Structure formats: C-alpha cells, structure tokens
C-alpha cells in the first residue's frame, strides 16, 4: 500500500450522547485505502452508533470525520454513498414484497434505467460469484441469499469504503469463505473495509487492523494476526475471560429425552420439514445439532417444543412418558422447555413487560397462575431473580422486552427457562448476536443445568460453540439428522462435509453454494 496516499477515513474525537448514555466517547481511529479494518466490541460498546455516524444515519455531537484527507460532514446516507461509502447492515434493510432488482434499484440513486441496472447487477454477481435471480421476490429467499442482495447493492456503487455489520452470523463456513474471497478481492482493488464482528477467529483470518471499543471508548488498536482470540476477547470485555467449568469425570445418566422417527409435514418458507429423525439424550448430556440455516432446524425445534404437533405419541418422550401429542403447555408441565431462535416476537412479546413474559412460559411450573388469576408478585420476584442471576441489563421486571438490547433479551430468555429447572431444555441459537462475555455466561449456565441432571439439546450454526459446549454432536441436513458422535471423536472437516450434505443418502440442496 502506498504510504503517501491520504487516509481513506479518519475519525477524530467522535462523541455521541444519548439521553442517559454516552454511546461514543472521544473515539479516534483511521482506515487506510485497501485496509480491512475490524471494529470489535461487546453489545452496547458503541460500534453500531459509530458506523451509523460514518454512514450519515446519525450525526456526531462532537468530533471530525475526514475522508481522503479532507474534512466532511456526512449529512445522510445519500451523502455517504456519494462519497463512496457502502454499508451492509446486520438486519437487512430489504423490502420483502419487492423483487431483488427493485430492492437494488432503491439503494441506487436513480440514474440508471432498470434494464441497464439489470445488466450491471448481473455483471457484479458473476464477477464476485454472488448468484441470485434478479426477478425473485425477496420473501422467497433464504437469509444467506438476502445478504447477497445487500452486498451486490453496496458493490454496485463501486464503494471506496464498505462497512459490514456482523455479516457472517447467518452463513455456512463455505459461504463465509466465499465472502472473505470477495472482501479480499475488493481490498486488493483499493476498497477499504470496515468489518464489525464478534467472531474473533474470523477477524484473525481476514483483518489487517482491529479497533476495540468498550463502553463507548476506544480501548485498543491492534494487529489481530499478532493477537490471540483470547487476548482480543479480554480487551473487549475488559477482564479475564472465564472458561467453561465442567466437573471432571462426570458420567452421563440414563436416557432422558428420546426422539423416535420424528417426521413433520411441510415447513415454512425458509425451512425444510424434518424427516425420520431419531436420537436419545441422556441425563446430564448436552446434545448439539449443527447445520446450515434452513435445513430443518426450525421444524425440529417446533416439533420438540410442541408448537407443531405430529400424530405419533411416541415420537417424543421423556423418561419413557410419551409427549408426542401434547402441546407446549403440556410438555412444559412434563419438564420440557424450549427456546426458539427468534427472540423478539417468538420467545418473548416485545410490548409486554419482562414479568408478563415470565408468566407466559413459567406460569405452570412455578405456580404463577392461581385459579385463572395471575400472581403478579410471584412473576415479579422470579423475573427479578432472572435479571440478577443472568446479569440482564434492564431497569427491572417492569421493563418491556422490546426495550432490551438483543443480547440482554437473550440472557433474560435463557435465564427464564434455565431457572425453571427443566428436565429437558431445547434451545436454538442460544448465543446468536450475544457478545463474548454474555455468551460465556449462557454457556456456563447450560453446563451447570446439565450437571444437575437435565438433558439439553442445543441447535446452533456456530460450530465453535457446539464443540466447546456439547458432549455429543449430530448434523442436520435437508431435514435428516446424521448419526450422533461424541464431540472428542469428530473432526471439524467431517462436520463441515456433513453440513454440506455429503452423507451419501441426501442430495445437495440448492442452498448449498456450488
């Protein structure tokens, strides 16, 4: 890289205050042309606020932004795009009812005819191997495909700085590798990349520099290739990272949860039905289900939690007692609790208080409803305990679920289920979008619950999480579950192949990139 070139982006003393919080406090850092620069930090560290100011969605209260050496005011996203700043959001800003092409056209500033735009879109797609049909309606696309639209949309503007906000949380290892190829190609052409993530090994693999934020302040700038994942994580949370503590030489108990020839009918838009799934989880065992999104995970969770009922009473049983025909309430009473993937709207009602949300799932197990009347005191006490035990950042049991940040809501939901001491707990994506410190706390809570003799099923796309947490691992692909194997005996390559659908029997699905 030519040292005489001006810095692509330079922030000096950026400060942003919200009522009651200092989101960014005197943050200064710079990005060189062609540099892949990581922005690291826990939830609430101020990463999103910072990039929103760079992209012109918010304005800083103090500080200066320099672009290619000259001070600029980024008044709005349009101005940012004009400068050459592109952004791929964590929560896609897509319009479901519109087509891929219409979505892309909306992100452009309207100088191209739709026919010319389509030609350009197809060009960019083939250059970077981002395959998509421009005329598909977004509602019919998978999460990974949706992300490709966002990337294509950003690339069409020939950006000089591309901001990526947690881009890999929904991708398969292969897709992640493809994405990295695209990003490296872009960087080689001189495009700077500001990469926000909490996956430290990805940052080590991809980024040239990492800027670490904590509590709105810049705490370190380092070369991730010189650091260990652990040292970066510790800088992020400002304390030593706790390892998962397991009691040594524990033995697993008798079979607790038995799933036998579980079949579901047609699943939703982005998932496939579960086909002939059987497995057993013993008392004290953590059973991991790995797999790429959209391979039957949601159907499996719904079938285990009782949200979707089959017609075989023996398909799901606890301690030999058949649960197959019981709904969620019935299963909760028998000791099976579940946490779905989508926390706001599925696992919790955003407009309800945390107390009311506790009543929704804990009412029977903890006696919060007596003769049809809600025992508000019990709910409040229990919720207070969840907040305290799981270090949920909330004003109190009276806060609405929707007012919590994603990571805090996840901690609350996990706590709400774990403190009910279920004999079987099924969780999907327990630490999705949760920062390292909180994830460690959730993992520890799961391990502790298992140590007390509960059987736990963890469905996750994060392989590192599963390998660290689970005793036994199986891979779901195309609605079928591979044979379960003890975690110590499988290699990552083997799991990767299974996730890609290479287990002989099933055909590779079209979601798998060629």
């Amino acid at each position, binding site marked *: 890289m030519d040292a005489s070139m001006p810095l692509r982006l330079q922030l000096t003393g950026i400060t942003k205050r919200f009522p009651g919080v200092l989101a960014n406090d005197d943050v200064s850092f710079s990005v060189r042309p062609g540099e892949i620069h990581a922005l690291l930090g826990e939830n609430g560290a101020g990463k999103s606020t910072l990039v*929103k100011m760079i992209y*012109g*969605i*918010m304005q800083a209260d103090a500080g200066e932004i320099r672009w290619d050496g000259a001070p600029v005011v980024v008044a*709005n*996203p*349009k101005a940012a*795009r004009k400068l050459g700043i592109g952004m791929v*959001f964590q929560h*896609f*800003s*897509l*319009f*479901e*009812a*519109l087509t891929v092409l*219409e979505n892309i*056209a*909306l*992100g452009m500033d*309207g100088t191209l005819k739709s026919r010319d735009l389509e030609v350009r879109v197809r060009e960019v797609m083939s250059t970077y191997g981002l395959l998509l049909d421009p005329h598909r309606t977004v*509602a019919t696309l998978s999460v990974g495909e949706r992300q490709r639209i966002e990337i294509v949309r950003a690339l069409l503007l020939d950006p000089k700085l591309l901001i990526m906000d947690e881009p890999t949380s929904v991708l398969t290892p292969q897709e992640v590798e493809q994405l990295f190829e695209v990003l490296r190609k872009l960087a080689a052409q001189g495009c700077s990349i500001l990469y926000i993530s909490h996956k430290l090994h990805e940052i080590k693999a991809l980024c040239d520099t990492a800027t670490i934020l904590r509590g709105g302040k810049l705490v370190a700038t380092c070369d991730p290739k010189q650091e260990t994942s652990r040292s970066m994580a510790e800088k992020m949370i400002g304390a030593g990272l706790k390892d998962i503590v397991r009691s040594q030489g524990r033995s697993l108990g008798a079979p607790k949860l038995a799933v036998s020839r579980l079949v579901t009918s047609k699943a939703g838009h982005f998932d496939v039905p579960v086909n002939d799934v059987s497995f057993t989880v013993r008392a004290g065992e953590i059973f991991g289900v790995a797999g790429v999104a959209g391979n039957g995970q949601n159907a499996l969770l719904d079938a285990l939690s009782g949200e979707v009922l089959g017609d075989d009473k023996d398909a799901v049983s606890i301690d030999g007692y058949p649960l197959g025909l019981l709904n969620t309430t019935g299963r909760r009473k028998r000791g099976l609790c579940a946490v779905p993937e989508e926390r706001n709207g599925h696992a919790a009602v955003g407009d309800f208080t945390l107390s009311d949300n506790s009543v929704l799932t804990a009412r029977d197990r903890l006696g919060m409803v007596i003769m049809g009347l809600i025992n508000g005191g019990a709910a409040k006490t229990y919720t207070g305990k969840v907040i305290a035990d799981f270090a949920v950042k909330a004003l109190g049991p009276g806060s609405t679920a929707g007012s919590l940040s994603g990571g805090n809501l996840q901690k609350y939901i996990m706590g709400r289920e774990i403190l009910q001491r279920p004999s079987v707990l099924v969780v999907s994506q327990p630490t999705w979008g949760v920062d390292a410190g909180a994830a460690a706390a959730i993992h520890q809570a799961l391990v502790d619950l298992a140590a007390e003799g509960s059987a736990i099923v963890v469905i996750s796309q994060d392989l590192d999480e599963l390998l660290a947490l689970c005793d036994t691992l199986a891979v779901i692909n195309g609605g079928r579950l591979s044979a379960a194997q003890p975690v110590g005996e499988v290699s990552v390559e083997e799991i990767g192949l299974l996730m890609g659908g290479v287990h002989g029997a099933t055909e590779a699905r079209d979601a798998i990139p060629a």
Partner: protein
Amino acid sequence: MEIIIPILVTLVFAATPILLAALGELVVEKAGVLNLGVEGMMLVGAIAGFAGQFYTGNPYFALLCGAVAGAAVSLIFGFLTLSLSANQTATGLALTIFGTGFSALAGAPFSARPIQLMGPLFPPELATHPLWRGVFGYSAPVYFSFFMVFAIWYFLQKTRAGLILRAVGENDLSAHSIGYSVRGVRYLAVLFGGAMAGIAGACFPLLLTPQWAERMTAGRGWIAVALVVFASWRPLRLLAGAYLFGLVMTMELYAKAGGGPLSVIPSELWAALPYLATIVVLVLISIRRDASTNAPACLGKPFLPSN
C-alpha cells in the same frame, strides 16, 4: 338498448366517485398509511365543490375546489399521524366525524338552492345515438377516473417514484435507513388521497344531485376504503370492484323504482348487497393466502425511527 344505456349511465355515475376515492386511498395505503377519514374528506370536498359551482358556475373550478378542500383536510390527518405519530385508525375516524360536522355547518346556508349539473365532456353531436351516448355521454370526472386507474398503475409499477412509495409502505425503517424521507413520501401520498377524495366528494353535487344535502356521500367513502382491500391494492381490480359496487347500487335504484323483475327482491336487500359482497370477497381473499400478501407490510403502523 333503450333500457341498457340508461342503466349503464346510472352505473357509471354511481361507480365514479367510489373509484376516485378508492384510487386515492390505494396510493395512501401503498405508502403504509391507513386513512379512514375518506368519508369525511369526501363530504368536505362535496361542500367545497358545491360552493365552487354555486358561486362561479364553472364545474372544473368546482372540482378544483373539492380537490383543494380534500387535500387541506387530509393535511390535518397527515400532521397528526405523520408529524405527531398519532394513531392512524383513531385519527381517521375523527377526521370522518369532523368532515361530517364541518360540511353540515358550511352547507347550511346552501340548502334548497340548486346548482347546475356538470355537462358532458364531449360535444352532444358525438352522443346522438344511444350507443355513442354510452361512450361519449359522460362528464369529465368519469374519463378522469379511468385515466387515473392506468396512471396510478403505471406510477406504482413502472416509475422510480412509485417504487419508492411502495418501499416506504413495505418497510419504513429500511427506507429511512437507505435515505428516503418516509414522512415526506407519506405526506405527499396523504395529500394526493385527500385531493382524490375531495374530487370524489365534489362529484356528488356536480354529477348526481344538484343541491346540497347533509351526508350526501351516504357512506360511499367507507365502501371506497373496503374496496381497496377487496382489490388487494391493485388499481385494475379496483376498477372492476368499483363497477361491481356501482352495478349493485344501480340495481337497488331500479328495484326501488319498481322496475319489473328486479323488484322481486326487496330493495332493502339490494341496499345491503354491496356490504354482503364485501364480506364474501374478503373471506375469499383470506382463503387465498397469496392474495393478501400484497398488503403493504407497514400499513397503519406509525413511523418511529430510532434516532
């Protein structure tokens, strides 16, 4: 032929105000705003149109008066729901009540003072034969309503501005984050809807009954609102729906007048038919699930950006 043409003319005049108001509401809803004040805006448009015709005798000026008055009233709705994020349903209902009362007050001095009906757009020589009368015998708002069906379809499907409007109705927060002015787009849509409702209201004194009567729109604004759902937010289906409703209302008139075979069914039943038809169609639409997915996803939700 001798019977069909008068029925056709009555049908067209019955359908036109509904179609105009519903087209306006369709654009408003496509932008994600539910304005239930159509009936109120129509009534204000009706009295403004009446007054315009009464004082100037120029029906085009009268239509313009209706449009301006409807847009002015819709601006109240826009300010409350868009700038102050008030509840759209409640505000829309209040707007209807306001429009009803305001038009009655403003219309009181005009009672029992007839005006001139609006004449046909084309010279009468074109409409001498009854058949030609069925094509060229109408006044300007009828042709305008047909033009607007295609204009709005083209606008929504083929233009960039239309795409932005749909995007705002589909996902306001995303549109905001890309950098579109959600409030700006919605204000324009609401004003357009108000103007269309005002024109639709002005059609009542100008095309149908040339004198002022309180509540002369007789619930047509509500039918227009239902029609938008009925047509699953598609302008061409709206055209079909408006004429279907117009047909049923025409039947009602003929049944009341004791017109032969139609009077076998009591006129009260004819009067109830449009509403029954609405229910039936809504049920059919909800059975066919894909049709309801055309609803704008942000319909009726207040726009509350996080910053």
